[in-house]
Structure formats: C-alpha cells, structure tokens
C-alpha cells in the first residue's frame, strides 16, 4: 500500500512538473480498435488507463485479442481506430524517430523468448540497448563498459550470471525467459509488456518468472502488463486484472473483484476446468 502511494505521488509530481496540468496516467487507451482485414475485428472500443507502478494482468480465452492489444501499445501492429497515449505521446501518430524512442521506453517479453539462439546470453541482453544507439554504433557493436556491467548486474539479479557466455540455445526455457527479461530491463523502460511469458514453461519455471516480473514492479517501480491465460496466476500476482473477450473489455478491476461468475463471463461458455489446466 505504502508503495502504491509512493508511486502515485511520484507519478503525480513528475507529471505535474512536466506538464503543469492535471494528473495523467502513464498509459491511456481510448476507443482502441484493430482489424487485420475488413471482416473481423480483433479489438473493439477498448478503453482503460494504467498508472505508473501498476502490475496489470490481461486475461481471456485464446483469440480474444490479448497479443494484439499489447502490440498496439508499442505499435508493433498498426492501430486501426482510436488512440493510445503513452507518457503524453500519441502512439498512433508518431514519426519514425519518435516511434523508436517510444519503443526504447517500453520493454517487451515474449512467449517464445525471441532471442538470437546462436549468440551468447550477454550479447542478447545488450541487444536491449540498441534503442539508445546510432546505427553506426550499433552495427559496430560498441557497448560501454557501464552497459556491460549493468547487463551482468541484471543477470546476477535474475540468477543466471554463470551462463553469461553460453549460447542461448543451450539454456532451458526458464533461463531463456530470464534472458528475455534482462533484455527488456536493460532498456530502462517505463513499461514492460509481457506476452504470455509463462505459456511455454513448466510450473516451477513459471513461478520463478512470475516472481521476477512481480519484483520489477515492486522493487524497480516499473509498470508491467502481462498477458496470461491462467486465471489463478493472474489473481495471485496482480493488483488489477483486465478481462478480454472477443476483442472487448468485459472486466476491469482488482483481483478480489474477480468472482467465479465474472470469470465465466470472460471465458464465455468455456468451463473453468478447461482454462486452468
């Protein structure tokens, strides 16, 4: 609670300083719609705000549009309708340079880790710094000693420092996902988007990963949005849960407001047993 109040004040004061106007959320999604073709709408009129320092889970059946929603926030897919405002910037209308800066401020963690398998762990972590580099610096592979030390520090924090010089394809799934988290954190992001981070992992590795993600918010104060399909995990870890069904927000509230009845609404006709496997 104290933490949340602190972050609230931090967010409040920082915005007040910059904008000199009323409090603004870190992320505002207003009337967001997305369709890949003319017929099917993947997202429809999605609205929510996210404050700095929140840990939000997004749940819903597969195909509900969870992945697309996350990818609209850092514009990995184009936005069809509505607006996404991140840190005061309108994501949909950013130019190429500004878009790069936006993405630098948003880390992303993927279901299949999306590492370069042949490169070492430490190289993969440092890939997160490219957003801060000019093309030439990046192509030459110049990283400062400070960046390298920071990468080692993150690996140590995540408990995989000893694998720093191993190739990523020699690591277990859980270890690879920790490399993915380190890559996101070295960006110094304000927000981390996690797209099904534990869907390919066994229960033990899942717990390790979720604990680490939780500590990103609680220790570093970085906002986290996590797509999950396990309701239990979402309830256990998050302050707030957003339920999606067929591209629409059908639930938005704290985890204790999420009753069995509401879960059934999120997942439609599917039975609970089926989803929680």
């Amino acid at each position, binding site marked *: 609670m104290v933490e949340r109040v602190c972050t609230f004040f931090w967010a409040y004061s920082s915005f007040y300083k910059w904008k000199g106007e009323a409090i603004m959320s870190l992320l505002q999604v207003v009337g967001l719609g997305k369709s890949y073709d003319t017929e099917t709408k993947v997202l429809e009129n999605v609205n929510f705000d996210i404050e700095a320092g929140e840990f939000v889970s997004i749940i819903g059946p597969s195909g509900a549009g969870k992945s697309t929603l996350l990818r609209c926030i850092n514009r990995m897919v184009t936005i069809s309708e509505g607006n996404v405002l991140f840190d005061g910037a309108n994501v949909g209308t950013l130019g190429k340079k500004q878009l790069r800066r936006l993405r630098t401020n948003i880390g992303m963690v993927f279901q299949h880790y999306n590492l370069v398998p042949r490169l*070492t762990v*430490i*190289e993969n972590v*440092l890939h997160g710094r490219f957003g801060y580099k000019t093309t030439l610096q990046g192509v030459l*592979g110049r*990283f400062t*000693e*400070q960046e*390298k*030390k*920071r990468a*080692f*520090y993150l690996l*140590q924090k995540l408990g995989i*420092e*000893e694998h*720093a*010089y*191993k*190739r990523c394809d020699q690591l277990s799934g859980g270890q690879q996902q920790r490399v993915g988290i380190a890559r996101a954190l070295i960006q110094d992001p304000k927000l981390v988007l996690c797209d099904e981070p534990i869907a390919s992992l066994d229960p033990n590795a899942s717990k390790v990963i979720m604990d680490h993600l939780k500590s990103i918010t609680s220790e570093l104060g970085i906002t986290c949005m996590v797509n999950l399909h396990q309701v239990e995990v979402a309830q256990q870890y998050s302050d707030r849960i957003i339920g999606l069904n067929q591209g629409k927000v059908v639930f938005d509230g704290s985890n204790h407001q999420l009753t069995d009845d509401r879960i059934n609404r999120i997942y439609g006709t599917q039975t609970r047993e089926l989803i929680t496997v």
Partner: protein
Amino acid sequence: METITKPTYMKRKKDGSISLKSGSKSERVMRWTIILFILLTIVGFLFFDYTGLHLTTAITETAYNLKVMFLEPALNHFSWGEALYQIGITLGLAVLSTVLGAVIALFLSLMAATNLSKEWISKIVRIIVAFIRAVPTVLWVLIFAIAAGLGSEAAVLGMLFHSIAYLVKAFSEAFEEVDKGILEALRATGSNWWHVVMHGVLPSTFTYLLSWTFLRFEINFSVAVAMGAAAGAGGIGFELFMASGFYFDLSEVGFITYAILLIAIILEVLSTRLKKRYFPASVRH
C-alpha cells in the same frame, strides 16, 4: 547505479574491457573461414588470365548484346517446329539420364544404406560415388564420346554418372531414416531381405524417392543443354552454341535463352511444390 557484487563470471579482453564473445571453436572456425575466403578471393583475382580484355568496351558491348537478346528475340536459322524438336531432344536426354539413373541408384542406394547393408559394402559404394561426383560431368561425357562414339549414348551415359551419384546419396539417406521399428517388425516375422525392402522400406520412402528424382530431373535439364552439344547429340544447347559461336545472331540467342529459361522456371516451380509438400524443412539439399 547498482554495481555487480562479485564479478566472478566476467571475462575480460586483453585491453581490460569486458568480453562479449564466448570464444568457442565454432566461432573461431567461422572467423577463419571468412578470412580465408577473402584472402583466396584476392589471390584469385591476381591469378586471372586477362588476355584480350578491354573492360569498358566489353561491358558496353555486353549491355548492348543483352538488350538485343532480351528485347528483340527472333528465330532466323530454324523454324518454330525445329525449335520445339530441339527442346524435345534436350528434355529427352534429361529424361533418359534421370530415369536410368534412378533405377540404377535405387539398387546402389540399398547397398549404401547402413541399416540395410553390410558396413564394408556400404563404404565401398560411398567411396565410388564420391569419386564419380568429383569428376565433372563434361569430362565423363567427353570420355564416353571417345569410347562409345558421338551421339546421345555418350551424353546419356556421361550424365548418368552424376545422376547416380546424386541420387544414391539422397536415396540412401532416405532409407536410413526409415523407422527402425518397421524393419524390426518385418524381420521378426521371418521376412528375408527382399521382403523387408519391398514391403517395409520402399513403400514408406516412395514419395521421397520420387521427389528427389524430380529434383534431379530439374538439374539434368540444364546439364543436358550443355551436354547435348558437347557429345554431339544435339538439342537446344547445340543451337545456342551455333547461334552465338557461328552465326553471331543475338536475336536467336535471345530466343533460345528465353526458351531454356521458360522450361527451367516451370521445372523449378514444380520441384519447389514437391519439396514443400514432401520434405520437412530440415532436409533440403
């Protein structure tokens, strides 16, 4: 900023900066291979025989030639019917060497597959095949042209050699991937070697073998363009040779090139479809 408490795992380069590379053997070999490529290429250009080369005129002339070829193709020394007939000869040479090659390769690959044959037989077949592959097709063709006389026999026999070598490698690898269980089950019922091959190995690899054979047909078509001319068997390649070397008729060269290109692309499209349909992504060539 937080610093690392115990940098036990950090590796440093000679100049004291933190290393990022693992320094594995494969990395070293790759680096050396690339360096070697660059050096050999530079040496290669020094080795070249530059007799009678005027680069600027050559390039402008070639540009002009290509323009005439591709923009004004025409037939001047023979008719459409003749052209089709010559293409038929080239295709015919490719068919013969592929079909005969596939039949012979089938038997040889049964001997070369380690799970169907004795080790020493398999080794001998593999060594022979490696030797055959190392001799360029044109040398086989020319050698056969002396021994068997000029004509389609020399062309087909010469091309046969490489087709066999290629298909034996492909077929025997396909046989070796046959599920051990199938072979064991058949052997357990007391089937002899022929039964195992006819009822276990061939049915489960048949589509594979066919696809490989077709891939070889695609290769053999472009080989046949050259070999028909070399062995005096004729074909579209011979016409190309005449048009460029004797008549200096660029429009005709253009026409013939288009004809070859058309057929080659049709064959390629077909074989790509076959590959996508029957081959897993891991085995391509």
